[in-house]
């Protein structure tokens, strides 16, 4: 049984594409058959984050316009044999595809994949409507900032209006040091405000920039963000996974008792 997940946020630049790339790669590393679909027509980016930009021949618009078969547009990942990317078109605009066409394409892909992950464009217009049309569940990405949370709230409202039964929140670029100083909202502050279940917290980590520079998702490696994304993948598949230590605002005493517990 396949599951179609849309990664969305409303606001741009909060980490939708990075989250899509890492969750897709992480699930593939767990042995799942995964296809990542870049639905941001005109501003494609998932290909570069995945390091697959040189292999594009056909794209999503070619598929819906019947210029090629689905299989011809799918690019096989460099590292994981069960991971594929469907790139977006760079020269078309959002109106080149309709929600009905998206649903049709996704239903064909369901037969071959366990997870279909849709990287949604920013905004709430046509591109957003296309991306959510065929999805079963959503990952809403936000950062602990007023503007991103406001947009996330709007998106959650729209997803609920479209009968989404499962909406999970990813809090990205959290800085535990700033939370401790009282200069950034904590994960629990954000959940209180948005009242949707939390599926993961990704700390602000320079390794994300390095990974993007190299075109290699960092999920699963031994960086803070890599571990956080790995945990999100486990939770996506339903495996219960405790939150990482930085995700809790621990006091001096719990840290001391933690030292004893390790022994």
């Amino acid at each position, binding site marked *: 049984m396949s599951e179609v997940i849309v990664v969305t946020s409303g606001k741009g630049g909060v980490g939708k594409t990075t989250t899509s790339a890492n969750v897709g790669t992480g699930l593939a590393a767990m042995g799942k058959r995964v296809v990542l679909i870049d639905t941001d027509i005109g501003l494609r980016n998932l290909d570069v984050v995945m390091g697959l930009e040189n292999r594009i021949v056909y794209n999503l618009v070619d598929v819906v316009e019947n210029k090629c078969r689905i299989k011809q547009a799918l690019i096989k990942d460099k590292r994981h044999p069960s991971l594929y990317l469907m790139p977006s078109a760079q020269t078309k605009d959002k109106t080149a595809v309709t929600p009905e066409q998206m649903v049709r394409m996704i239903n064909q892909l369901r037969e071959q994949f366990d997870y279909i992950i849709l990287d949604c464009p920013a905004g709430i217009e046509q591109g957003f409507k296309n991306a959510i049309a065929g999805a079963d569940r959503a990952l809403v990405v936000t950062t602990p900032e007023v503007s991103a949370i*406001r947009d996330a*709230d709007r998106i959650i*409202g729209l997803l*609920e209006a479209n009968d989404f039964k499962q909406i999970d929140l990813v809090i990205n670029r959290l800085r535990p040091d700033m939370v401790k100083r*009282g*200069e950034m*909202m*904590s994960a629990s502050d954000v959940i209180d405000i948005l009242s949707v279940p939390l599926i993961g917290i990704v700390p602000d980590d320079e390794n994300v920039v390095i990974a993007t520079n190299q075109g290699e998702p960092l999920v699963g490696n031994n960086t803070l963000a890599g571990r956080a994304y790995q945990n999100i993948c486990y939770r996506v598949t339903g495996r219960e996974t405790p939150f990482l230590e930085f995700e809790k605002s621990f006091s001096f005493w719990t840290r001391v008792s933690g030292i004893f517990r390790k022994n």
Partner: protein
Amino acid sequence: MGFKHFFSRKKSREIAKDRLKILLISDRVNCSPEMMEMIKTDIAKVISKYMQIDTKSMEIQISKTGVKGHDGKMPTLYANIPILDLHSK
């Protein structure tokens, strides 16, 4: 930043939370903060007829996680009105 201000400064985390709470109420109902303020004063006016309430600390909020309506989640208006004296004046 003045001397007094420095010590009484509210952390930006709290400021952000407070701003968002107000902002999202009006976003969710699709009406302006002014209108929410008017609803609040009107509710306060009506309740005050019957009991003494703390109008300064009363809060109203529109939440989506309310009761289930016939077509899924229905937005619900929550009013938190501290009563100072149950008996009328």
